[in-house]
């Protein structure tokens, strides 16, 4: 027999499915929602419902959006001739925080992962090639993670786009800002030295 009333047990069950939320945390959150005002609780429920009902993928860049094309693809003040290729929609937020990139994006929704059986067909690569072949692009920035899978994906895209007149670039890797060189591993240090620039 359940320790709580059925609706409360159901909410705890659903919350504990979220990443990073264990049974205890789910119980604490459920009681918080129970104690909240009706307005706040329904606002949370509506936000979750709207998330699934209103969001979809941008038909151009495959970013998650509520309008199509998305805010980056439809914004005339952004340079649509430069696109930054990222693995996941969440990567866009990291790049936008820098306020140093004013181009458009293309979201692959993953990386090539032979171990997990994810090949080029499972990624949004065809539409990237179509965008490049449309002829209005000047530069494609490959901003996949510097992991084995991210590097393999960048290498694959480079092979695919090499024959086109578009400039293909890769984001730099090396020592993070504020880090101590003493603690940098060999690969990171090697890349930092290779990617050095003249001051």
């Amino acid at each position: 027999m359940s320790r709580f009333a059925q609706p409360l047990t159901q909410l705890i069950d659903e919350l504990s499915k979220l990443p990073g939320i264990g049974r205890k945390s789910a119980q604490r959150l459920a009681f918080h929602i129970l104690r909240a005002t009706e307005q706040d609780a329904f606002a949370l429920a509506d936000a979750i419902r709207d998330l699934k009902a209103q969001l979809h993928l941008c038909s151009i860049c495959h970013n998650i959006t509520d309008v199509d094309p998305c805010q980056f693809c439809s914004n005339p003040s952004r340079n649509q001739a430069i696109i930054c290729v990222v693995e996941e929609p969440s990567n866009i937020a990291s790049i936008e925080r820098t306020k140093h990139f004013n181009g458009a994006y293309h979201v692959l929704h993953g990386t090539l992962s032979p171990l997990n059986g994810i090949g080029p067909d499972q990624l949004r690569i065809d539409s990237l090639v179509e965008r490049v072949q449309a002829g209005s692009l000047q530069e494609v920035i490959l901003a996949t993670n510097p992991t084995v899978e991210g590097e393999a994906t960048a290498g694959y895209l480079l092979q695919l786009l090499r024959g086109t007149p578009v400039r293909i670039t890769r984001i730099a890797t090396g020592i993070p800002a504020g880090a101590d060189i003493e603690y940098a591993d060999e690969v990171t240090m090697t890349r930092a030295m290779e990617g050095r620039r003249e001051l």
Partner: protein
Amino acid sequence: MTLHQSEAIVLRTWPLRESDLLVSLLTRDLGKVRGVAKAALKSRKRFGGALEPMTYVDAAYAERPRQELVRMDHFEAIASPLALPIDYLRAATLGYYAEVLENVLPDHDPQDAIFRLTLAVLEQSQVGRCWMPVTYFSLWITRLIGWLPETDRCTECGQNFAGEAAYFHGLTDGLSCARHKKPNSSALGVDSLALAQRMLRDSICAMSEEPWTRQSGRDLRRFLVRTLERHTERRLNSAEVFSRMGG
């Protein structure tokens, strides 16, 4: 609690809770172990880039009594696959080594020969030069695990192939001669049989000087992958990439 410091090869990682990683590690001293690298996604100080699959590391970890998972404390990379360029085939090759080792090795069973084989093939697996180490690894891991049938004679009649092709079938063990082959068998050419004999005799360094294409030893690789898949009763995802690339 027992503290260990050992050479190891990272096989795979899986996300666990908010910022932890579940790590599968092939250690030289204890064989395959699994453990949790706490806060590995948040802090890069203890692991850096050393959690990438097939990174050769100096690993510090702690075994806790009555607990299956060890506590991963600190890794220092000795050789990273990221030190050399990576393309799709090299990524698939590294994934293949990790997947095979993960599937065929039991936990806590140290096998130094397999550890040395893995280090040797990792060193040779470079962009544009992956087909030979993949074939060498497949042949030797199958042999070291004890699943490699005789490659010079028919399993049914014991007759030597003597310059003729052998045949294998996905559902049966061993190689057969033309007279005893099963319906829908695949052929293993004379060149590939000779290649297998040479690979069992020579070191990988000696083989590395030879020119290789994706066609070299293709039927031998397929036979070995099928043997591994049949014994583990699992499809090898990364081997699918080899087929798609015509190798």
